[in-house]
């Protein structure tokens, strides 16, 4: 399995997959939660090993925040089980093993940044020194500012500081970079990667796909309350769309192209044929053998965004089977199989 370079640089090793018996940082089994008629989470199974950096992607309403809330013990699941380091979420929170940045989490109003830090520091079992947190979250320039007067980016940095304060082994970050400009966002990830260098586990939800791709060594895609994909960024990209091989449309039989090894789907757009392949090398060799006259061949890799859109718009249960997404469902089955095997 290929591990993303940055991730390898961070942990110094490929991510550990927790085997049965070892204490996983997070273990979710059949997690289910409904709010009235809304099925927010429909049976999520997920195991995150210690030291992993995992991104959770999904469109709005996919269940990301609800999953986070159940990991933190804020929300009680209707069914299923959440364990953090083998403990009940409340116990993990109480002993300061989890720190979290909640989505659009509120800040104490009518108080200065430093007041908020001092107040919260006393509520954790083994907090980090305040100066350390201030430096890591880069709060130095606005410590005396009232929380109501902070900019969006500053407020996010304070929320990040509050997540670091308990000196947690597991960091849960729900859309941490919303409201940050590019520069702050970059330094935020640098800080987070530094914080996790000693083997801490991070699970973050984001809307920014490139962030997930760059920072996380593993990406979990949620759609409609279910896990629809789980793997490295490269795996997710190749799973869904693989690569696209296109060639001039010379009237070749589509069925013949679809039968080539590795091909997951065939589309004809304009004067070109597009083959979605899970193994472009094999497909191209077979293509050239079967159609020696093929010309204007191009191979392009799918972007994570394409994969994301394909995965989340064809999630099981949504009943959306249009647009020649034949291969996508096939890949879903692979994916489920794959997770069972882990």
């Amino acid at each position, binding site marked *: 399995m290929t591990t993303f370079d940055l991730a390898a640089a961070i942990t110094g090793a490929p991510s550990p997959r927790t085997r049965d018996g070892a204490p996983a940082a997070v273990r979710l089994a059949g997690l289910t939660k409904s709010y009235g008629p809304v099925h927010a989470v429909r049976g999520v199974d997920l195991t995150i090993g210690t*030291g992993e950096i995992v991104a959770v992607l999904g469109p709005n309403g996919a269940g990301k925040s609800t999953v986070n809330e159940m990991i933190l013990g*804020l929300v009680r699941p209707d069914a299923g089980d959440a364990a953090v380091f083998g403990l009940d979420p409340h116990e993990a929170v109480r002993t300061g093993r989890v720190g979290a940045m909640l989505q659009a989490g509120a800040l104490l109003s009518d108080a200065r940044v430093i007041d908020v830090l001092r*107040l919260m520091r006393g509520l*954790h079992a083994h907090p980090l020194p305040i100066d350390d947190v201030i430096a890591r979250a880069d709060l130095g320039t606005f410590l005396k500012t009232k929380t109501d007067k902070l900019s969006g980016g500053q407020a996010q940095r304070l929320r990040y500081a*509050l997540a670091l304060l308990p000196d947690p082994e597991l960091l849960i970050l729900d859309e941490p970079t919303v409201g940050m400009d590019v520069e702050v966002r970059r330094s935020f990830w640098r800080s987070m990667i530094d914080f996790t260098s000693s083997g*801490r586990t991070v699970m973050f939800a984001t809307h920014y796909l490139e962030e997930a791709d760059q920072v996380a060594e593993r990406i979990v895609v949620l759609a409609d309350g279910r896990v629809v994909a789980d793997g490295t960024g490269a795996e997710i990209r190749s799973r869904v769309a693989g690569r696209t091989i296109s060639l001039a449309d010379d009237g070749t039989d589509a069925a013949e192209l679809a039968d080539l090894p590795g091909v997951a789907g065939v589309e004809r757009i304009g004067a070109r044929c597009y083959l979605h392949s899970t193994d472009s090398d094999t497909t191209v060799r077979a293509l050239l053998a079967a159609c020696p006259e093929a010309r204007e061949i191009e191979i392009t890799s799918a972007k994570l965004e394409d994969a994301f859109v394909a995965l989340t718009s064809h999630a099981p249960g949504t009943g959306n089977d249009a647009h020649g997404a034949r291969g996508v469902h096939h890949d879903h089955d692979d994916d489920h199989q794959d997770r069972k095997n882990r």
Partner: protein
Amino acid sequence: MTSATLGATTVAPRREVMTRGVASSAVHYATHTAVLMIKNFSFVIFTVIMPVSLYLVFSSLYGNVPDDPTGLASAMIMVSMAAYGSLGAAMSGGAHLAVERRSGWFRQLMITMLPGRVFLWARAAVIMMLVLPALALVFLAGGLIGGVQAPATVWLASLGLLWLGLIPLTVLGIVIGLWVKTEAVQGVNTLLLLGLSLLGGLWFPAELMPSGMQHVAHALPTYWLAALGRHPFLPGDAFPWTGVWVLLAWSVGLTVLGALGYRRAGATSKR
């Protein structure tokens, strides 16, 4: 597991030490919150200055009670107004809480080591701390301006009993802050404040009410709050033990409601 081994050098040993207990974190929360509240000028005005202002206005309305050589009638007015004024202060804690619930700050507190019920008690303790100077000011005004005369032990006993009697009403304020919509908290507080004062006999003695209303009064915490506060000024009267039980029952019931509300607030407060 390679990275676990990597992390073990820095992460693992520290976990063994639990440097702080729940009690000390509760004390920490209470003192820091109290300091933040005191810095809030309008809140201080409301809690501390309001009761004594009310007392001064009402005692001047009643004027110096004629035929009151012992100052007993003045003392009764003072105790009633202290109860009424501090009632508002005690219940005001809920408004703050409702704001924190609405903003979602609550959820941040729930991912600390502070358990829900301890948080509520710490919060009540903060209000109780702020109510004490409010009561003391009313008593000071009663002695200096209102013509109330009594031995020091009587003053202290009355002050102490009023203060303890405010516990269920402080919890009531918190329950409102946890259950009622933020926009409605002020209205509900005012309504309850008026209802509890009127029916509890803080404005005129419950003994003047029709018998049906007297039964209601005897079930209310405000009636017994004032009764407890009056007792030290009335030597020879039996100690109102019924009041202690009624107040205790309200405290227990409201605490249960508060604990349920805290759990609900964590799950439903804004994200």
